[in-house]
């Protein structure tokens, strides 16, 4: 026997007869879903990094006080072939005529911006993309122009230098939302010439670099080693948490959908393989009789699978790439800058996973065929022998678990989904066994045809369990795709309601607070959070000065080196939830601190630990008495640390506010004029961007969910096709014995109704529980509740669907003359 040639011929012959079509289709679909979604997710991920780089203004930033960063940081970057951009930031008052305005000046060299685009509005009101300001020119925020009462084309003075206002800043990369004054952008040469950067200036210095990712990586490693104290690295990962969260959630959705599609296809592959192996039994027995050895059979079957799998996986990967290209056309608009290159990794892994799924699910039943007795050509009953447990049957579970773990990209998603599906499998097993037991005990009291149908379930116990299990798992996946996914998306959209805060106000002084609040109320501002803000340094944890090295987290080091902000309140602020300890309330005898959960973990704190802050010339040591989970995506003012108000009020502070007003409200300009020291930050642009991302990602996800649904329906067909074979002979026999079509239908309907209802109900419960767990742990939507009514309706609909499908399959069989079936089966 020439195994390859034999396997190839065998494959060709079986393909011609459609035997392998379901198997191949399931595989193509699984690989296509994985490749499409994996590639799409990877490209979106790359786009996030690119987009974050634009917000930062480069691929990596090094910040230090002026003069604190050695010149070799620039030299090293140039040696590494990276573009560099130097920025100096300082606060200064600018003048124009009699008017003056406190501003944050950003002095930039001509390379600005390295990433993203600077856009300014000219005197005619049109926005244009601009280069860094030339010497003698500045760009200024609208707030600066309003404060000075000047327009583009007028002049202003900084440090005694007279400069032309060449444009109003529309968007400038690298800015911070939380700066205390509006921005003026000027050239570094002017700032130097004006003597603004001399010794004693409190300017901060930032070096931005950009270039190829590996070069940036190498430079980051070098910089980390040579970083002087008080200097810090800013990577793109640190930029813009809000956008990141939106993308991450979107990615989790995409991965969830892809995983479910792959699992459904895996089940389809498994069922098709089961059916295939049952049909192959006769052939294997004959081949053994004709002298094929066990090893030859195993080799031929394995080769046949491989010959099927490789082209199917290739087609699937190609199809997937095509699909993601179509989907990416949607996403392209929302991703600024260059289109990320097509990553090949996800397609390759989809290809490999496809092979693993096929071999994992199909090999065990096929390899079982090596045990087919050659005597089976004379006696059919030989295969009814009880077989001992075969370790091979663990293979699909291992493959399934591995698939979930690799594809989920997150341990939590994997754990929740894996746990949910395992729970469904176990619950199905338990309920099925109970039902079978009840049928065995009380089945005799049922009317004739129905009794026969249900007796079938008991008689084919193993097959019944496999079928109910496969059906329940497929329906769970379908429920997750069709009901839980969309309702989670809906809940996510509702996360940014129309009255989400779109303005931040900084630097409100304590004596302005009442006036400020009254004015905002007068304007009809909604969702106002007005909280005190004190800035200082974290000087001790449990009485000891914290050291960055103790926490193994770069962020911790940044907080220790840099400025920390603290607030206080008598009530738990909205979008905060106490997860440990108790909220300190209004009248605490000793200083109490509530800490954000991520901080709590980062600084390895425990309840009862103390934290010492230096605010101005005061020090306060507070006991950590509660831990909060903070919804950082709420666009409200939120703090990592919250003191009790009794001890906070004594600290030097200003107020910070967030609120919602329709964009461009006229009253805001008046507020700015009345309270000139207050700075107003308009975050409508960021909000719009986040909303846009949510909309687009959710439409992409809806599309992927639909794609996965097709995979699910394929599974259902495979599951029912597998049962149709089993029924051919029985129906023929019943008809030979004189059963009429009504009796046949009753038998079939009874059997399928039991199958469908059991699977549907367990699946609905499993999907609801999985949905709640996903919402809590993966998507961070703690108040999500699944639509139980819809799930119930789907359970009933799927029961009806299963009954109809069963009836349709049987009808086809019932039309064949019984004698043909009986002869064929002999």
């Amino acid at each position, binding site marked *: 026997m020439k195994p390859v040639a034999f396997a190839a011929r065998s494959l060709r012959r079986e393909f011609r*007869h459609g035997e392998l079509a379901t198997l191949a289709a399931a595989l193509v679909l699984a690989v296509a879903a994985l490749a499409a979604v994996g590639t799409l997710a990877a490209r979106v991920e790359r786009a996030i990094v690119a987009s974050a780089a634009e917000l930062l203004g480069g691929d990596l930033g090094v910040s230090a006080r002026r003069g604190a960063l050695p010149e070799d940081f620039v030299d090293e970057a140039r040696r590494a072939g990276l573009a560099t951009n130097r920025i100096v930031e300082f606060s200064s008052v600018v003048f124009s005529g009699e008017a003056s305005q406190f501003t944050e000046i950003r002095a930039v060299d001509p390379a600005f911006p390295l990433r993203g685009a600077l856009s300014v509005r000219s005197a005619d009101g049109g926005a244009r993309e601009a280069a860094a300001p030339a010497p003698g020119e500045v760009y200024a925020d609208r707030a600066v122009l309003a404060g000075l009462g000047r327009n583009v084309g007028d002049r202003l003075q900084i440090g005694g230098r007279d400069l032309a206002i060449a444009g109003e800043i529309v968007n400038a990369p690298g800015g911070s939302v939380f700066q205390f004054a509006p921005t003026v952008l000027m050239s570094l040469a002017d700032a130097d010439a004006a003597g603004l950067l001399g010794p004693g200036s409190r300017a901060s210095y930032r070096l931005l670099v950009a270039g190829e990712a590996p070069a940036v990586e190498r430079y980051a490693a070098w910089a980390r080693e040579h970083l002087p104290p008080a200097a810090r690295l800013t990577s793109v990962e640190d930029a813009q948490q809000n956008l990141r969260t939106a993308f991450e959630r979107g990615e989790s959705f995409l991965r969830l959908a892809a995983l479910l599609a792959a699992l459904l296809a895996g089940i389809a592959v498994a069922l098709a393989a089961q059916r295939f192996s049952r049909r192959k039994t006769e052939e294997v027995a004959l081949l053994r*009789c004709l002298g094929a050895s066990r090893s030859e059979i195993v080799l031929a079957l394995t080769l046949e699978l491989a010959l099927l799998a490789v082209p199917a996986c290739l087609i699937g990967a190609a199809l997937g790439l095509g699909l993601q290209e179509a989907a990416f056309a949607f996403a392209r608009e929302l991703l600024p800058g260059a289109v990320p290159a097509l990553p090949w990794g996800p397609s390759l892994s989809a290809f490999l996973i496809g092979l693993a799924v096929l071999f994992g699910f199909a090999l065990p039943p096929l390899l079982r065929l090596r045990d087919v007795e050659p005597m089976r*050509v004379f006696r059919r009953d030989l295969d009814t022998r009880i077989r001992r447990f075969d370790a091979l049957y663990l293979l699909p579970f291992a493959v399934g678990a591995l698939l979930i773990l690799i594809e989920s990209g997150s341990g939590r998603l994997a754990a929740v989904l894996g746990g949910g599906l395992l729970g469904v499998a176990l619950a199905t097993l338990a309920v099925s066994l109970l039902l079978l037991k009840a049928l065995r005990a009380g089945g005799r009291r049922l009317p004739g045809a129905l009794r026969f149908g249900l007796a079938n379930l008991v008689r084919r116990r193993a097959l019944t369990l496999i079928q109910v299990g496969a059906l329940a798992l497929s329906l769970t996946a379908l429920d997750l795709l069709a009901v839980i996914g969309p309702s989670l998306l809906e809940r996510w959209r509702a996360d940014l309601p129309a009255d989400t805060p779109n303005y931040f106000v900084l630097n409100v002084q304590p004596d302005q607070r009442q006036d400020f609040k009254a004015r905002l109320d007068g304007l009809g501002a909604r969702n106002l959070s007005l909280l005190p803000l004190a800035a200082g340094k974290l000087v001790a944890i449990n009485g000891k000065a914290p050291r960055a090295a103790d926490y193994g987290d770069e962020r911790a080091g940044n907080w220790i080196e840099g400025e920390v902000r603290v607030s206080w309140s008598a009530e738990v602020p909205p979008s905060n939830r106490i997860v440990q300890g108790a909220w300190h309330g209004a009248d605490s005898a000793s200083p109490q601190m509530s800490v954000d959960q991520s901080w709590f973990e980062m600084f390895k704190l425990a309840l009862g630990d103390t934290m010492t802050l230096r605010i101005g010339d005061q020090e306060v040591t507070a006991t950590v008495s509660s831990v909060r989970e903070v919804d950082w995506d709420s666009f409200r003012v939120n703090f990592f640390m919250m003191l009790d108000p009794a001890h906070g009020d004594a600290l030097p502070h200003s107020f910070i506010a967030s609120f919602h007003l329709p964009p461009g409200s006229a009253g805001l300009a008046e507020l700015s004029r009345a309270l000139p020291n207050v700075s107003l930050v308009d975050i409508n642009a960021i909000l719009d961007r986040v909303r846009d991302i949510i909309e687009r990602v959710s439409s992409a996800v809806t599309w992927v969910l639909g794609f996965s649904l097709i995979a699910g329906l394929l599974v259902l067909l495979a599951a029912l096709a597998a049962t149709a074979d089993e029924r051919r002979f029985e129906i023929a026999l019943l008809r030979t014995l004189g059963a009429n079509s009504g009796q046949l239908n009753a038998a079939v309907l009874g059997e399928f109704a039991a199958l469908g209802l059991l699977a549907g109900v367990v699946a609905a419960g499993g999907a609801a529980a999985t949905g709640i767990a996903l919402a809590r742990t993966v998507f961070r939507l703690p108040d999500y509740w699944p639509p139980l009514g819809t799930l119930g309706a789907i359970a009933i609909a799927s029961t009806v669907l299963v009954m109809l499908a069963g009836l349709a399959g049987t009808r086809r069989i019932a039309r064949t003359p019984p004698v043909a079936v009986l002869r064929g089966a002999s």
Partner: protein
Amino acid sequence: MTLDSETVLSARKLSKAVDGPDGRLTILEEVSLSVARGASLAIVGASGSGKTTLLGLLAGLDRPTGGEVTLDGQRLDTLDEEARARLRRRLVGFVFQSFHLLPALSAEENVMLPLELEGRDDARERAQKALGDVGLGQRLHHYPHQLSGGEQQRVALARAFVHGPALLFADEPTGNLDQRTGATITDLLFAMNREHATTLVLVTHDPKLAARCARTVHMRDGRLIEDAA
């Protein structure tokens, strides 16, 4: 019973017992026989007399629980299944009551199977010739379901002889056919047997078919009760 060079198949005190729900069941009890090269032997008996079991043991499809089988000088009962498979491939052809053609394969492909198992390159040509020999040269690409019962059994005959086996085992080869077609198949079977000088072992309960064999043995309750040479 002696083994001489002309004996191609022999059994000595061959027994087969299986564990059933009501205890151990003996299907075959100490059967001894030998078949000379080129001879034809009919095993007859009622249903359940153990004749198919005996055929399976003689052909090396199953292992006895006691006794010996020797096929072409090789002890079958001591060989493992893999070695028996190799022996079958080389020496044995089969014809079954229910034909056992693979439904997904055309007539030609079905006949090619034993040759493909041997890894022969001329499988197609030889299969075509074999089908021509049984009068189906025009039906090469028909599938089993497109052929009548008699035609299917002719394909099976072509498959049984195509690799030139030393022994042919036939299990009720006409059992699923009407009288006339059965007679045609019988004629063809014996003609091919003569032509290929094959040793034929045939299981049947049709006395007419048994009468065509040079020798008939009878089975009853798992024992060989008569050896009418």
